[in-house]
């Protein structure tokens, strides 16, 4: 993790329009040297446009991109000290694994012996067998192809490595393995990684910092913990997955009241100048059963669905006012209720999140 807080890659006022359509609007961002930064957002949020501008495949309509203070705007992609791992990986099918990895070095005119040495180093670093050098890329498995693509990019020795959702086409298990490997490689090489994905979960595993994008703007930037525990608005809070949301108005002191039915809930902290907004309660921090009956915020409801999720069980509980609550409980926490039972639900004020409109 980079110790210096100097802005290594700086974006100021970046805007990109395609005709009348604004894909990216007034983005300011400062990425630190050596960090693993991920841009997260749903499809259409502009993240692919962003990364293409950073790599040099597109030019911003307005705004500056600076690397260590130097303007990158007009510099074409093949002259930038950056390299990208493409979504389709774009491995050259007519070249062997070794030739793929060596490509940038061959272009730069490095002699074959040195290229070979470096390629072998990278094969080892990426945990690929050395005899893969002559292998055809199409004969390699999905996970291996990812590593070859990464090795090829690393061979370029870029200052920044960009990733365009490379893992999205893989199955769950492979993805989980590669996420952790990517994090290890990042630590080993110490290079700056800029990654884009639509999965916040994936970003949380790997990143030092995350930037959430929506409709061409950056909504929040922070560490995974900050994003998760202190989302700035409803969108970010709901981006992670299913959450319970109540629209509330300020009710003075440590209280807010539900807009729908006036019920008062206790909160721990309110954002400055809070007048109205949303109370977010994640299913996993809600308690169900006897444990809940002692909590400051509680209600009763009927269990009408349960889902086994492996290590957790999720319940849908319907309150008398018709609102459905989602609650999760770890398997080893005791609970003796079942379907159609009336149960207590509750949470502690400090576990809930309050965001403004």
């Amino acid at each position, binding site marked *: 993790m980079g110790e210096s807080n100097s802005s290594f890659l700086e974006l100021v006022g970046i805007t990109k329009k395609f005709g009348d359509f604004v894909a990216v609007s007034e983005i300011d961002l400062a990425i630190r040297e050596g960090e693993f930064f991920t841009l997260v957002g749903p499809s259409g949020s502009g993240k692919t446009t962003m990364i293409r501008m950073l790599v040099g495949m597109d030019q911003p309509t307005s705004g500056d991109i600076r690397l260590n203070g130097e303007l990158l705007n007009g510099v074409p992609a093949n002259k930038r000290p950056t390299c990208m791992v493409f979504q389709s990986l774009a491995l050259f*099918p007519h070249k062997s694994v070794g030739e793929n990895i060596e490509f940038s070095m061959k272009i730069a005119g490095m002699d074959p012996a040195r290229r070979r040495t470096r390629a072998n180093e990278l094969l080892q670093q990426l945990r690929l067998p050395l005899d893969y050098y002559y292998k*055809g890329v199409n004969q390699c498995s999905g996970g291996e192809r990812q590593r070859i693509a990464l090795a090829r990019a690393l061979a370029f020795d870029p200052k920044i490595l960009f990733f365009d959702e490379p893992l999205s086409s893989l199955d769950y298990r492979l993805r989980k393995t590669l996420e952790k490997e990517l994090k290890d490689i990042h630590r080993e090489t110490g290079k700056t990684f800029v990654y884009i994905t639509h999965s916040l979960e994936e970003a949380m595993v790997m990143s030092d910092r995350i930037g959430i994008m929506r409709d061409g703007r950056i909504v929040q930037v922070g560490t995974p913990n900050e994003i998760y525990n202190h989302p700035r608005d409803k969108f970010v809070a709901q981006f992670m997955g299913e959450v319970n949301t109540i629209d509330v108005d300020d009710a003075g002191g440590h209280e807010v009241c539900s807009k729908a039915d006036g019920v008062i809930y206790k909160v721990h902290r309110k954002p400055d100048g809070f007048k109205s907004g949303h109370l977010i309660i994640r299913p996993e921090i809600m308690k169900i059963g006897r444990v809940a009956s002692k909590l400051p915020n509680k209600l009763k409801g009927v269990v009408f669905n349960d889902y086994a999720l492996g290590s957790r069980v999720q319940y849908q509980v319907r309150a008398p006012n018709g609102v459905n609550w989602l609650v999760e409980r770890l398997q080893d926490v005791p609970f003796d209720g079942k379907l159609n039972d009336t149960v207590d639900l509750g949470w502690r004020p400090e576990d809930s999140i309050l965001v403004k409109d």
Partner: protein
Amino acid sequence: MKTAGSSHIARKLIWIWTYAVIVFLYIPMFAVILASFSTQRYFRFPIQSFTTKWYTKTLESLSVRDLLWTSISVAALVTVFSVLLAFFGALAFARYDWKGRKLYQRLVLLPIFFPQAVLGLALLLWFSALGITTSWQTAVFAHMIWIVPIVILIMSIQAYSFDPALEEAAFDLGATRWQVLREVTLPILAPGVISGSIFAFLLSWGNFPLSLFSTGADQTVPEWLYAKMVSGYTPMVPTLGSLTMSGAVLMLLLVYLFWLATGRRRRQAQNSVSSDD
């Protein structure tokens, strides 16, 4: 899982029908080969006696040599120029996205969906209006009008499955535009270039309607065959016909063997994005 409803009998029948049609396609060609060995001046079946004297006569004939030379020259030049134009034309057709592409696609396909004889005659008008006498060189031009679109189509089929990210990746890794073309684009599109070349050569070699009106005083093999078929028949007609057929088949065979020999890596290149494990 086999398609529901395709019974075993239906499949057998379809195979039998296909065989029958293929045999049907090759009947006339065997007839020509057969006739080339008949001693008689005018073709009569069953053949009374066989000979190879017509082959000797044909191969020794100076006028036949002229014909072959004309046909080959035209076909060779057509191939070279067509492949050059069509390589870029195919990239524009299938690979790049640009304003006017749809119109361009239609323009390119038009000469294919067009009566060749009329095209030949129109070109004849064109040449005389421009004061150009027709000869085998104008025939090259005429052939290309029809053949360039065909080669573009053939290469486009290949170009469509070409992942644009490959060129971007090469560029991103530091290559100049020229290096990208040489290291990535050309090698991957090579199979299309080769099949396009073969088609260009053989289609030009066997073309009649366009040659008829654009060769002027020169004559290609198909023109001569037609003239002799209509009047002045000689057994050299089936002989020369057999020779040109064999030439074409031989050429295809050689290319096929060459393709087999170098095929391993190239076959991998057909699927640039393969499945994961």
